[in-house]
């Protein structure tokens, strides 16, 4: 092999560079962001469903809302505790959770999720 030493050194440096992000981040896992509540959301204490259900299934609930509102004209939702909500992402959800960047985007960015809700539905005006 011609120039064997140079090639091996080059390979080691190359592979080292390639793997450097792994060494750099070794041992420290990126913490999942915690959704932040606005004072209004804190004060309300309850969402339309339990916190556990909303964390895991908010996308299913929103999908069901959009189907039933648009296709069946069922515009009101009764929660388990009997409270009635107007089914609307833009009007109801974002009224409490008006901090979209801290409540929605943080987690969506963390998991590389890019929901297309906001192509049409308006984002709340935030004081950043």
């Amino acid at each position, binding site marked *: 092999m011609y120039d064997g030493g140079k090639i091996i050194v080059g390979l080691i440096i190359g592979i080292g560079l390639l793997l450097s992000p792994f060494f750099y981040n070794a041992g420290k896992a990126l913490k999942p962001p915690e959704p932040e509540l606005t004072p209004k959301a804190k004060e309300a204490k309850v969402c339309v469903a339990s916190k556990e259900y909303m964390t895991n299934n908010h996308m299913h609930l929103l999908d069901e809302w*959009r189907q039933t509102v*648009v*296709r069946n*004209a069922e*515009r009101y939702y009764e929660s388990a505790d009997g409270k009635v909500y107007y089914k*609307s992402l*833009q*009007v109801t959800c974002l009224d409490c959770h008006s901090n979209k960047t801290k409540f929605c985007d943080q987690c969506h960015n963390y998991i590389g999720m890019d929901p297309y809700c906001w*192509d*049409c*539905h*308006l984002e709340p*005006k935030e004081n950043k």
Partner: protein
Amino acid sequence: MMGISRRGFLKVAGLSALMAALGKSGFELLRPGQVEASIPVTKGKRWAMAIDMRKVTPEIIEECKKSCHHYHNVPEFDNPKVEIKWIWGEEFEHAFPDQQHEYVSDLIKSLEFPLLCNHCSNPPCCRVCPTGATWQREDGIVMMDWHRCIGCRFCMAGCPYGSRSFNWGDPRKAPKELNPGFPTNPEFPTREVGVVEKCTFCNERIAKGQLPVCVEKANEMKKDSFIFGDLADPDSDIRKALRKHYSIRRKTELGTHPNIYYIIA
């Protein structure tokens, strides 16, 4: 002689062809629209609008258009090739081409008619939509699901009234100088590029017991110029108005059964 004779075969074939033609499917094939028209689509409600042309002025139409487009975040482009319109004004000749003639009265000629989606009882747009993104609700409203529209524009080709508009570009990138403060209503979504849109009879307002935006605005300017109501209820204001006055509808010969009535006299 084996099996069936030529004569016998023709008899059976002819008879079955006749049966098929007389059957429901054959009937539907031969006379499209008739079967749908016979299906009861109402459950007590049939939303419709009567527009009193003796009261409507071009100013009223302009204000209706402004407030409707403001409420539904409809952008202005100032270019008829890409314009989006839910309600607009048009002269008699263009609104009622089938009834136009050389000697039509000066009064009729001078009128401007407010045009919008007719919310037809037999809507051709819904027949052609390949995704079910537009359909007729039980209360007669021809509704749209913008989530599901793929922008094929069959409905625009199907609609004989030009009531549907296509988003050739992102509505949020509409010229800023023509659309100050767009999107204008924070409680209503915008649409996105590649989606068809049209008047939805303000179904979200009806659900809350409010009148459509144009009706509210027009009646503010001139009382009872737009009458919105339920055709299924014989005592509704719209039925009373239609009983009392002579009204016309657009392009009725097409069999679409439009639900916007124009009171003439």
